[in-house]
C-alpha cells in the first residue's frame, strides 16, 4: 500500500473504490490515493496509528469521504477531523450517494469544504471524480504540512 497519498479516500464499497480509481487513472492520479474502508481506519491513518503507525506524519492534500460507513460513519469522521487542531486544515470533500438535505446541512455545519452527490450516470461520475481529483490534488494549493510532490 502506498503510504504517502495525496488523496485519502474513505469508502467501504469496493466497486465504488474501483470506479473512482478508474476515473482518476486517466489523470494518473490513482497512485496518489490511499483507500481506507471505514471511519475507524480513516482516523487511524490520519493519526498514524494501528497499521499506519509507520507512515510519515504528512497530511493528505484532500480527503474524499463517504457518509455511510461501517463502525464510525462519515459525519463522525468529519466531526473528529474538524475539531482537531492539526487535522482541521485538511480540505474534506463529502462524496456520497445521498441527496438528502439533512446530510448536506449536517456536513456543511461541521465545516465540510465540498459536498458532491455521486451521479448514477458513469460519464457524469467520471467527470465529477476527475474534476475533484484535478482540483484538489493538482490545482488547489494544499495547506502547509501536506504531502507535496
Amino acid at each position, binding site marked *: 500500500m502506498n503510504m504517502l497519498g495525496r488523496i485519502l479516500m474513505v469508502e467501504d*464499497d469496493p*466497486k*465504488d473504490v474501483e*470506479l473512482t480509481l*478508474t476515473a482518476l487513472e486517466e489523470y494518473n492520479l490513482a497512485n496518489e490515493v490511499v483507500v481506507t474502508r471505514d471511519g475507524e481506519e480513516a482516523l487511524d491513518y490520519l493519526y498514524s496509528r494501528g497499521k499506519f503507525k509507520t507512515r510519515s506524519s504528512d497530511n493528505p492534500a484532500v480527503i474524499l469521504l463517504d*457518509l*455511510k460507513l461501517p463502525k464510525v460513519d462519515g459525519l463522525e469522521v468529519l466531526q473528529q477531523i474538524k475539531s482537531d487542531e492539526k487535522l482541521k486544515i485538511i480540505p474534506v470533500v463529502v462524496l*456520497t*450517494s*445521498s*441527496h*438528502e*438535505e439533512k446530510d448536506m446541512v449536517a456536513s456543511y455545519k461541521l465545516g465540510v469544504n465540498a459536498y458532491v452527490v*455521486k*451521479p*448514477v*450516470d*458513469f*460519464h457524469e*461520475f467520471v467527470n465529477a471524480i476527475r474534476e475533484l481529483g484535478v482540483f484538489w490534488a493538482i490545482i488547489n494549493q494544499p495547506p502547509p504540512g501536506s504531502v507535496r510532490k
Partner: protein
Amino acid sequence: MARSYPYLQHVRPVVLRYGLAVVSVAMALLVALLVQHYKFHEVGLPLFLFAVAVTSWYAGVGPAALAIVFSALCFDYFFAPPLYSLNFTLNDLPSVLILLTFAALITRFSAVRRSFEDKLRQARDDLQTEVIERTQQASLLNLTHDTIFVRDMSEVITYWNRGAQELYGWPPEQAIGKSSHDLLRTVFPLPLDDIRAKFLQTGRWEGELKHTKADGTQVVVASRWALRFDEEERPVAILETNNDITERKRREEEIRGLNLELARRSTELEAANKELEAFAYSVSHDLRAPLRHMFGYAELLQKRASSLLDEKSHQYLMMILESAKRMGNLIDDLLSFSRIGRAETQKTLVNLDQLVQEALSELRQETSGRDIAWKIDTLPVCHGDRSMLRLVLVNLLSNAVKFTRKQPQAKIEIGCGDADKDEIVVFVRDNGAGFDMKYVKKLFGVFQRLHQTDAFEGTGIGLATVQRIIHRHGGKVRAEGVVDQGATFYFSVPNFRNPGRQP
C-alpha cells in the same frame, strides 16, 4: 259555634253584647216574677245566675260584669226583703254573696274557656296557613325538572318530587318510607363514611353518584346534598338534588375514547412517517449505489470490449445502460415526490410571472432547437410555497414541451382563468399529443402513464407531484385533453388576499 263566635265578638257592635246582658237579666227577672206569682219561691237566684252564665258565654267578660250588677240590683229590689226597695240589709248578704261568687266563678270559667278556644283557633289557623304554604312549596318543587328528595338522618325518604319519579320510575308513595341508598342502590365515589363525615361537618356535599332506576338501568347523577337543622341546631334531614348526567358522561367517555384513538393514530402516523423517512433515506443511499455500479461497469465493459463485441452485443449493453439511467431517474423522482409530502410548506407571496420565467430558463436544454410559439399572459401574485410552485410550473411546462415534440408548429399557452375572490386558476395549454378523456382520472396517479415509453419518455411522477403540491396548498388540479389535439392543465392556488386557507 266555633264559627259564630268571632261573628258575635268582632262583627256585632259592643252595644249588642251589653244589650244581651240587659236582655238576659230582664228575661231572668220576668221569668222569676212569673214563677213567683204562682207561688214558687227561691228561683230568682238560680235564674239570675243563668242569665250571667248566658251573657258570659256569648258576650264575654264585660257584659257579664254588667249582668252581675243588674242581677244583684234586681234580686235586691224584687226578691230580698224589704221588697221593692234597694235598701241593703244584712239579711240579704248571704244571697247577694252567693250570687256574686257564683256569677264571678261562671264568668271566670267562661273567660278561661274562651281564651283556650281563641288559642286553639289561632293554632288551627296557623296550621292551615302552613299547610297551604307547604302545599304550594311542594307543588313548586314538583315543577322543577331536577330530581329532589328529602331523607331523614337514617336515610329514609320523606319527600319525593315529580322529577325524582320521572328519573327513577317510582311514584312518591312507593319511594317514601324506603331507605334511599337501598332503593337506588347508590354507588358512591368514596367510602360512604368519609362522605358522611365531610357532609356533617360542612352541611353540604357535591359529587357524582350511580343510581339504579326502577327498570334496572343505571344512571349517573350529579348529586348535591344540603343538611337541614332543627331549632336546636341538630341535623334532621338531608335535601338531595340530582341531575341526570348519564348522557353527558357517555359523551365525555366517547370523546375521551376518540381522543385516545386520535393520539394512538397520530403516534402510528408519526411512526409511519419516520419509517417512510428512513425508507426514503435508505433508498437514496443504498438503491443508487448498485445502480451506479451497473452503469459504471457496463460502460467500462463497453469501452474495453468494444472491438470484440458484435452489433447485437453493443445493443444489449446500450439497453443495460438505458435501463440503469431510467431507474436512476425513477428513484430521483420518487424521492423528490416523497420529499414534497414530508417537507414543510413555507408560504409567502409568490410572483407567478417571475416563476414562469425561472421555469422556462430551467427548461432551456429541452426547448433549444425547438420551434415553439409561446403565449404567456400576465399572471397575478398568489400565496404559496415558492420552490414547490416553481416545481409545479417546471413539471407542467416540461410536459407541454415534451408532448408537442411531434407537432410541426408547437403552441404553448400559459394563462390565468377568471380570478375568484378566494383563488387563482392558472392553466398551461398545448397543442401536443393530448390524451383520451376516458383516462383523465389516471393522469395524476403516481407511475401512471398514458403514453408508451418509447413515444414519450418519463417516469409518471411529474403530474402526481403537481397534484400533491397543489393539494398541499388547498387547491385543485384538473386536465382536459383531446388525442392529438393537445391538453390543458389547470391548477388553483389561494389568492394572496386569502392566505389563511389551508388544505
